[in-house]
C-alpha cells in the first residue's frame, strides 16, 4: 500500500526497465543493423565505360556461382598440380597490367560482386570472347575484345575447380594461410566464421556441380578456344548424361566472335549459333549467360543489357592496324570473293547482305563434322523452351536444325582456327581440299601468321608452355567439308593468295 502511494523519484523499476529495454531492444537492433549491413549487401563492382564493363562487369552469375574472392586468388597456389602451369594464366586467361606494370589481380572476363557479406568472383561474357594477338614473337600481346578466346582452355578451367574441390587441401587449414600470404587481410569475423563457412559451402557446390559435369572428363580434349556448348546446356536440366546417345558427345565448337550484333538482327534476324538454332540475339545472349552462372531469378539483366548494347555496334580491329595489306592483290581477290563467297558470307566484312547469309545449309551439302549438329537435339530444344518460365522473356525461339549456318565474316582474320570446330588453322588452309589441310596442328598460340591468316599452328610450345595438339582424326575434330569447286578449294594458288589478301580487309 505504502509503495503505491508514494512512488519514489528514482524508481528501481524504471531503471530495470531501461536496462531491460537496452538489452532486449536497443542492442539487438544495433546488432541486427550491423548484420544487415555486413551480410545484406548485393553490390557488384561497376565500371563507368562500356569497355571496362565488358571486361569486368557482372552478369549476376556471382549470386549462384560466385567464388569468394580470396578463395579464387588462393586456389592456384593451393592446388597447383591441377593446372598446366602457373596460375590462371596457364589456362590461357588474359591478364591486363596495372599502371605499375604488375598483373591485375583477376583476369579479363571476371567480375566482382559483394553478396551475402562476401566479395565474390565469377566469369562474364568476356572470358570466352576476348583474347590476345602478338605480331611477332618478341612483341607484347595485344588484347582484343570480342574475338574468340582462342587461348582460353575452358575444359581445363572447369576441371581445375572440380579437382581442387575434391582435394583434401580444399580446406580452411590450407586456404586461409595462403590468403594471408597473398596479403588478404581478412578481419576476425571473416577468418573465424565467414571464410570457413564459405569454403565448406563452395566445396559442396562445386562438387555437386562436378557430378553433373562428370561427362566432361570423358570427352576428348577440347583444347583452348573451344567448348561443348550444348552438352553443357543439358546440364541445366540435369539430364542423366551417361545415358545420352553416344553420338551426341564429343561436340566441341569454337568460341565465336561477338561483334556487330545489330546486323545479325536487322534488317532480318539471322540464324545464330553454329547450327543456327536460334534467331533472337537477346535469347541467345541469355542462353549464353547460363555459362556465366546466371539463373532466371539471379540474372542481372540491366548489366547484361549494357554489354548487349555495346556489342550491337562493336567492331573488330582492322588487320592493317597490325600488318600491311597488299591493296592491289586484295582488289583482285575481291572479284573472286564476290563470285565464290558473297552469297553465303555477305558482301564484305561490314556489309552482311547476301541471299544465304545467316541461313542454315543442310549438313549433306556443307559436309563439315556432324557432331556439333548432333549434340543439339530436338529434345533439348523443347526443354529450352521451359527456360525463364514465368518471365515475359521465356525462351521461345530454339529450334532443331539439320545443318550449319552461314556466318558473316566480320573480323574474320581474328576468328582462326576455322570451321565450327576450329579444325582448320588458317584461311589459306581452308582453301585447300580437306585431304590437304593439316591433319595435326597446334592451337592456343597468340602469335599471328599474317601470310596464311591465322595463328601460328606449327609450333608445339610457346615460351616453354606446351600448346594443344589438335588431331583432326579424333571424334568431333574432322576438318572435312566446305570444300570443292564452289568453295574455292580448286582455285589456282595465285587466286587463293588474292582471295586471302582480300579477306584480310574484313
Amino acid at each position, binding site marked *: 500500500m505504502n509503495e503505491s502511494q508514494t512512488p519514489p523519484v528514482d524508481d528501481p523499476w524504471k531503471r530495470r526497465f531501461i536496462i531491460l529495454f537496452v538489452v532486449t531492444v536497443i542492442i539487438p537492433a544495433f546488432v541486427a543493423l550491423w548484420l544487415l549491413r555486413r551480410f545484406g549487401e548485393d553490390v557488384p563492382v561497376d565500371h563507368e565505360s562500356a569497355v571496362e564493363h565488358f571486361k569486368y562487369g557482372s552478369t549476376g552469375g556471382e549470386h549462384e556461382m560466385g567464388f569468394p574472392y580470396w578463395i579464387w586468388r588462393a586456389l592456384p597456389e593451393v592446388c597447383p598440380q591441377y593446372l598446366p602451369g602457373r596460375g590462371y594464366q596457364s589456362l590461357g586467361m588474359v591478364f591486363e597490367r596495372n599502371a605499375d606494370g604488375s598483373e591485375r589481380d583477376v583476369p579479363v572476363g571476371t567480375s566482382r560482386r559483394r553478396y551475402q557479406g562476401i566479395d565474390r568472383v565469377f566469369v562474364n561474357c568476356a572470358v570466352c570472347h576476348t583474347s590476345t594477338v602478338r605480331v611477332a614473337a618478341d612483341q607484347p600481346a595485344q588484347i582484343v575484345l570480342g574475338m574468340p578466346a582462342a587461348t582460353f582452355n575452358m575444359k581445363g578451367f572447369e576441371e581445375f575447380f572440380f579437382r581442387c574441390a575434391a582435394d583434401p587441401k580444399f580446406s580452411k587449414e590450407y586456404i586461409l594461410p595462403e590468403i594471408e600470404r597473398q596479403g588478404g587481410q581478412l578481419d576476425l569475423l571473416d577468418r573465424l566464421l565467414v571464410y570457413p563457412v564459405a569454403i565448406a559451402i563452395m566445396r559442396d557446390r562445386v562438387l555437386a556441380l562436378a557430378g553433373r559435369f562428370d561427362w566432361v572428363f570423358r570427352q576428348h580434349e577440347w583444347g583452348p578456344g573451344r567448348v561443348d556448348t550444348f552438352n553443357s546446356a543439358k546440364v541445366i*536440366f540435369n539430364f*542423366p548424361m551417361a545415358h545420352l546417345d553416344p553420338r551426341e558427345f564429343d561436340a566441341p565448337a569454337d568460341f565465336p566472335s561477338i561483334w556487330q550484333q545489330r546486323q545479325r538482327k536487322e534488317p532480318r534476324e539471322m540464324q545464330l549459333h553454329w547450327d543456327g538454332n536460334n534467331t533472337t540475339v537477346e535469347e541467345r545472349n541469355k542462353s549464353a549467360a547460363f555459362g556465366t552462372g546466371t539463373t*532466371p531469378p539471379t540474372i542481372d539483366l540491366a548489366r547484361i543489357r549494357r554489354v548487349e548494347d555495346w556489342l550491337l555496334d562493336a567492331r573488330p580491329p582492322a588487320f592493317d592496324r597490325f600488318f600491311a595489306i597488299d591493296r592491289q592483290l586484295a582488289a583482285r581477290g575481291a572479284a573472286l570473293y564476290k563470285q565464290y563467297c558473297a552469297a553465303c558470307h555477305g558482301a564484305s566484312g561490314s556489309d552482311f547482305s547476301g541471299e544465304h547469309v545467316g541461313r542454315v545449309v543442310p549438313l549433306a551439302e556443307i559436309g563439315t563434322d556432324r557432331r556439333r549438329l548432333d549434340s543439339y537435339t530436338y*529434345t533439348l530444344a*523443347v526443354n529450352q*523452351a*521451359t527456360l525463364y518460365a514465368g518471365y515475359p522473356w*521465356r525462351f521461345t525461339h530454339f*529450334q532443331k536444325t539439320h545443318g550449319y549456318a552461314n556466318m558473316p565474316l566480320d573480323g574474320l582474320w581474328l576468328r582462326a582456327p576455322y570451321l565450327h570446330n576450329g579444325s582448320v588453322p588458317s584461311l589459306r588452309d581452308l582453301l585447300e581440299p580437306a585431304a590437304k589441310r593439316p591433319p595435326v596442328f597446334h592451337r592456343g598460340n597468340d602469335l599471328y601468321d599474317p601470310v596464311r591468316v591465322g595463328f601460328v599452328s606449327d609450333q608445339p610450345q610457346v615460351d616453354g608452355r606446351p600448346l594443344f595438339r589438335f588431331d583432326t582424326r579424333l571424334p568431333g575434330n574432322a576438318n572435312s567439308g566446305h570444300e570443292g569447286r564452289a568453295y574455292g578449294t580448286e582455285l589456282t594458288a595465285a587466286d587463293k593468295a588474292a582471295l586471302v589478301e582480300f579477306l584480310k580487309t574484313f
Partner: protein
Amino acid sequence: MSIGTRKPWVRAIVILVGVLAVLAALIGYDRGFREQPQPDWVSATPETRFKYGSIGAEHDAGVPYWIFYVLPRIFPEKLRQDGRIVPGGYAALGVPWELGQELPIGFTKKIIGFPRVANNCAVCHTTSIRATADANPSFIVAGPAHTTNVEAFFRYLIDCAKDPRFNADILMAEINRVTDLDVIDRLLYRFFIIPITKKRLLEREAQFAWIYRPDFPEWGRGRDDAMNLTKYFMIRAPMDDTFGPTDMPSVWNLAKYRWDQGHRMNYAGDSHDAWSVIMDSALGLLGAAPVNRDEFVAQVKWLHGYLGRLPPPTYPFPIDRAQAAAGKPLFVAHCARCHDSELTGRPLPLAEVGTDRGRIDSWNMAAAIKANQVVKEMGLDRRGLVEADPEGYVAAFLDGIWLKAPYLHNGSVPTLRDLLEPAARRPQVFWRGYDVYDQKKVGFVSDGEAAQRVGTRLDTRSRGGGNQGHEFGTQLSAGEKEALLEYLKTL
C-alpha cells in the same frame, strides 16, 4: 457483448484479430483457390484449344506447376522406359512437344490460386510424325499418340513422390533456382502445396497398383490399359487379373459414328456414342467429379462438335494414283464387307476375327452398370456404356488409316504391309513409338538402331500383345498387296 463495451482494448484486439483473419482468408483464397482464365492464345484457334486448353482437370488431377517443373531436374533417373533411363525431361516420355512451347501438347497450365498442370485429350490423341530422321516432327491433332508413354508418366509422378528426397527443402531449393516466388507463395509451397502434393500422389499408388505388377508387360509407347483405368479409377473396382492393352485411337471425324444405326465406340463396342466416350475420357482426366458441372458439359460439347467435324488427315506423301486405282477393286473384294458396309462400326464376334482377347476380358457388364451409375450420380447426362459383356471387336472405320499404325486394337502389327501377312509372318518383336514414317510399308519405322533406341519394345508373345487374327487379304499376291496398300493411303 458486454465485455466489448466494458473493455475497449479487448474490443480493439477482437477487431484486429478479425481484420487479420479476413485478410488471411482473402490472401489464402487468392493464392490457393482463385481460378483465372488461361491466356488468350490458348483458345485462339480450335487446334490450340484442343492442344493446350484446360478441360478442368487442374482441380483434382493437377500438379502444382513449379513442382511439375523441377521434378525432372531432381529425379531424372526415374524417367525410364523398358527399364532404361532416358534423358530429356518430360520429352523422354515421348509426349508430342512443339518447338517454343512451355509444355508438351496435351498438357494444360491454369491458375487456380497457383499455376497447376494437368492434361487434356490431346496428350493421347496427337500424332508425332517425321518424313525422315533428318526432319523435325509434325503434329497431327486427333491422331493416335503412338509415341506417348502414358504408363511411364503415371509411374514417374508416383515414383518421385515415394522418394524421400521429395520434400520441401529439396524441392524449394530447386524451385528457387528457376523462379522468384514471393514470401506468401514460398510459405504456401513449403507448408501446404508440397506436402499435400506428395500425399495426393502417394494415394495414387494404391489405385495404380496394377501398373506395377511384374507379371504384366509394360504398356510401352502409344498404348494404355483403357478399361482397367476406368475400372480402377471411375468405379474403384478391386484389382482383378485382367490386362487389356489397347492402341491409342484416333478421334477425328467422330460424327461418322451413328449409335442409332448400331455403331458402337471403343475397341470392343463398349460405349454408345461419341458424347459418352468424350465425357468418360474427360472424367478420367479429371480424376473426380467436375467442380463446375455446367462448364464441364460445355467443354464436352465443344470437343464433341470439334472432333465430330474434324476431317481425317490426308496422306502427306506421294501416292501412285494408277496403283491406287488398281487397289480399289481389291479393297472392295477383300475389305469392304467389314470396313465399308453396314457392318462397319459394329462389334463382330471375336471368333470371326480371332485377334487377342485380353481387351475384351478386361471389361464386363457389371462394370458398365456401375460406371453408368457413377456418372449419373454426378448429374451428367449421357447414353453411356453398353451394359453387356463385350463379345468382340468393332470393325473399324478406315478413315485416315495410314496414320493409325501400329495396327489391330492392341497395336501388335507395326504396318499395314505386315497386317497383310499371316500372323506367323508378322514381326514377333518390334519397337513402338519412333515417329519416322515408313512410306513403303505404311506405318512407322519399327525396327533398326534408331527405332530401338527411341521406341519401346513390344513382344507380341507378351500378355495382351498377341498379333494373331484378322488374317484377311493375306493370301493376295505381293503385287496385289502393293496395290491395296496404295489404295489404303487414299482413305
